């Protein structure tokens, strides 16, 4: 017992403080704006989102310290267990998940709903770190590459089935960054990029060409079905490419989010004084979750939104710093994978908020309301601390 307590204390004392500081700042900002954006009415004092988010933040911090205290090498050895557990959750969610907005992404567990796809991300990072470490010099070999890609694609397919296109997309930078950091030959990387680009063009072609070619609705639907895509995904892609086609539906969020961000100006309108948020133009269903950044941008202006962006940049840089000084390859890969995961979320979420990327429904790590995201991000950051605590520099 005492041994465990000592290890926690040691971990807490010696952690990389910039990382902890950034994470705590982002969590605090998240809590404040989840409170502000989940405003119901003057009379209703209770803000269930806020109360739940506090619980998630506390659990997240505990996981953070726990992960830091654990030796990441032990975790890597157990990575197949985490990976299989995550896959099992993804199968369960497809079987008995809660359906919301036409997708099965959530599992209801005693009053909380959890999103298994969130846990699949750190699990995959862990699994890939272990695999790529074992592969060593053989990364150029087709067999090794196929195994690695197979491990990555399996959860992606399950998540695509939910469907949750955004989360699937986030796996791409994770796998790419880890392959790159693992020292995969340039030739391998280039051919993978080429394959990826071709695949993306094929998807876009399936979505756009039939409509532009003037095919009937039925034929369009048949092609879409053959390609294994849902009309909902097609709609999202189309809305991104041409938001004007659905100004009251999916295009609405994009438009309102841009107005919110832009009207914030340099210093913003003040906490809980954002018109887009309080008047409900930015729909209340998404304001505390996927569009929390536009609430922050509206209420704190460029000063606040740039500060949040800077916090993430510092967080990512210190994560990659840890990677560069890690004691072994596993540590390097682990840190790189977690950084790529967080970076992917931050970049896509903010880009979507300001109209540069499609509306994908990805949370802003640590800031958006959502327990699963907070827990998986904190677990990832905890693993970085674990690497740091056992790195060469110490």
């Amino acid at each position, binding site marked *: 017992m005492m041994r465990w307590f000592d290890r926690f204390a040691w971990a807490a004392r010696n952690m990389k403080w910039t990382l902890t500081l950034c994470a705590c700042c982002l969590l605090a900002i998240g809590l404040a704006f989840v409170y502000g954006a989940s405003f119901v009415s003057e009379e209703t004092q209770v803000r269930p989102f806020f109360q739940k988010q506090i619980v998630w933040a506390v659990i997240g911090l505990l996981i953070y310290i726990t992960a830091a205290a654990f030796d990441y090498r032990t975790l890597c050895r157990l990575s197949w267990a985490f990976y299989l557990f995550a896959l099992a959750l993804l199968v369960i969610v497809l079987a008995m998940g809660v359906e919301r907005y036409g997708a099965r992404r959530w599992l209801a567990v005693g009053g909380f709903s959890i999103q298994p796809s969130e846990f699949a991300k750190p699990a995959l990072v862990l699994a890939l770190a272990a695999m790529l470490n074992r592969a060593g010099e053989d990364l150029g070999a087709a067999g090794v590459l196929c195994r690695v890609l197979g491990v990555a694609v399996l959860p992606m397919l399950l998540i695509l089935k939910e469907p949750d296109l955004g989360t699937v997309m986030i796996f791409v930078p994770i796998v790419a960054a880890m392959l790159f950091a693992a020292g995969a030959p340039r030739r391998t990387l280039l051919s993978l990029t080429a394959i990826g680009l071709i695949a993306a063009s094929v998807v876009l072609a399936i979505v756009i060409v039939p409509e532009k070619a003037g095919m009937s609705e039925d034929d369009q639907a048949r092609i879409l079905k053959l390609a294994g895509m849902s009309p909902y995904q097609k709609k999202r892609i189309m809305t991104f490419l041409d938001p004007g086609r659905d100004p009251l539906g999916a295009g609405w969020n994009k438009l309102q989010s841009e107005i*919110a961000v832009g009207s914030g100006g340099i210093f913003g309108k003040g906490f809980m004084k954002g018109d887009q948020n309080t008047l409900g133009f930015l729909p209340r269903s998404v304001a505390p979750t996927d569009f929390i950044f536009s609430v922050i941008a509206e209420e704190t202006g460029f000063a606040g939104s740039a500060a949040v*962006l800077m916090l993430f940049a510092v967080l990512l840089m210190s994560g990659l710093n840890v990677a*560069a000084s890690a004691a072994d390859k596993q540590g390097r890969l682990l840190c790189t994978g977690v*950084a790529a995961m967080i970076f992917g979320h931050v970049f896509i979420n903010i880009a979507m908020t300001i109209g540069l990327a499609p509306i994908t429904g990805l949370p802003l790590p640590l800031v958006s309301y959502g327990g699963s995201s907070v827990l998986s991000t904190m677990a990832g950051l905890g693993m970085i601390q674990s690497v740091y605590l056992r790195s060469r520099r110490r």
Partner: protein
Amino acid sequence: MPSDRLETEISRIRALAACMCLLLAVPGIELARMQIFHAGRYRSSLDRQSIRRVRLPAPRGRILDRNGKCLADTRPSYSIAVYVEELRKPGSLSRTIEAVEAAVHRTGGIIGLRPEIGPEDIRRHIRQRAPLPLVAWRDADWKAISRFAEYPDQPSGVDVFVEPVRTYPMGRLAAHVLGYVGKRDQAAAEEEDPFSYYLPDMTGRSGIESAYDRELAGLAGAQLIRVDAAGFKHRAEMEREAVLGRDITLSIDWRIQRLAEEALSDARGAAVIVEPFSGEILAMASSPSFDPNRFGIGIDPEEWRELLTDEARPLFNRAIQAAYPPGSVFKPVVALAALDSAAASPATTFVCSGSFRIGNAEFDCWQTTGHGAIALEKAIEQSCNAYFCQLGLLCGHQRIADMARELGFGERTGIVLAAGGMTENPGLVPDEEWKKRRLREGWRPGDTCNMSIGQGFVLATPLQVAMMCACLANGGTLLTPRLVLNPSDGAYEAGRRVKCDRRAIEIVRQGMRDVIENASGTGRRAHVEGVELAGKTGTAEYGPSHARKKYTWMMAFGPYENPRYALAIVVEEGVSGGITVAPRVAQIFRGLLALESHDSAAGGEG
């Protein structure tokens, strides 16, 4: 592990870090562009989608009589309204509608009135005018309002809502002068910036209300309301208060107006009373009349149709819109034309045998036994048709027509009411050219005779006759009738001296004095003890020969030496000017004298 592999891996991590920083700079730059350089554009799209402009009608200015007595006022109308945003329920719209309905029912129970609006009205209101209060009982009576105000536990979201409403405290008094108001046509609103919502507002539709609408209407205020995504009011952003309209002071004296209206209370017709040196209209009455209060908050279409189709035409201002054959009140014009042109003198004498024949037309004199040989003054006193036929022939119709025009006949007086959509009738002064153009016939001597006794084609409005009477009263200045005394109306034109020999006017005046003051005068029934009056009666026949009807006239001014009043009255379907109208003139002058003595007594006290 070879160190160069480690080097590669670490440099790749560094490259990834650089790459992330560069990529994060992209949204950073976009944020700067949006929030620093284009914030104004996003703010205006935010305002466009969330700001609603509501037009707040200004209370109309009052219309006062010359003593400051209020003839048209704006009173607050108390309505009970529901503030829908306060009753809003989450979830489907029907829950909000139910909540509003429940509040309306509860309020109805408190104030003892049946609800006037149903779920459909509520739904329509929310769809079309959600940020505005929903009026549940418009212009509720004071009992309902006080019951509501004193109720200890008022339903939330329900409150009293005040709107300005036009009211005419004197009822029908001077209705034709004041005119009436109607719901403003919002589509035709001339405001530069369009409003999202308009509250009910009234605009002048007739009379002074319409002619001076710009002054009376004031300046509409505006309220900017911030609405939420569902269109409900979030908060009032700004308000520009409406500016009260200007008061308009009329030359009308409400007491004199009442005298004129009383004189017409049992008849159809019109009366105009003028101050003979200023042209100020002291009274303008038209009978039958209407109550402009019926238009206060918007007249109901049924009532409106009733007013429009009434055979007595109550909305018709007979004083300026109706042109009647003037009959014998036209004779002074003939006398002036003859005297001024020196075609005749006061001594010119003709013989009246009870009728006058020219060609195959015969003109009867009312005195069927004939007046014998009479001279001009007596002929005026007696209103002898035979004399004026011969005088007219002697003078010639062109001179008569010229003199008539000189005295304001055949031409609109330019009274301001005409600007209010109340088309002034110009009357008609016929001449050879007119007859050729309109009837394709030459002028005959019989036409001259007809014209000389104010019949045939001659038409005049009561106002024109009153203005001519004022001109004779003041010794030869034809004035422009003045109805509004507001000082800024400086452009008022005083009038002009008529081109006519002063001695001729004096002779006609004397004849007109005899009409009333001589025991044998046709207007002797207009005599009033204690004041010397002058006037002229008139009776003009119209209608088919088997059912002849008479327009009966009288014009009069007084006191003779120093006139303070000039008036003209026409009564439709009377017996004769002397019998039907003269007593009404006497009644009016008696009233005027009583008012004067009352005023001087009050002034003496003060």
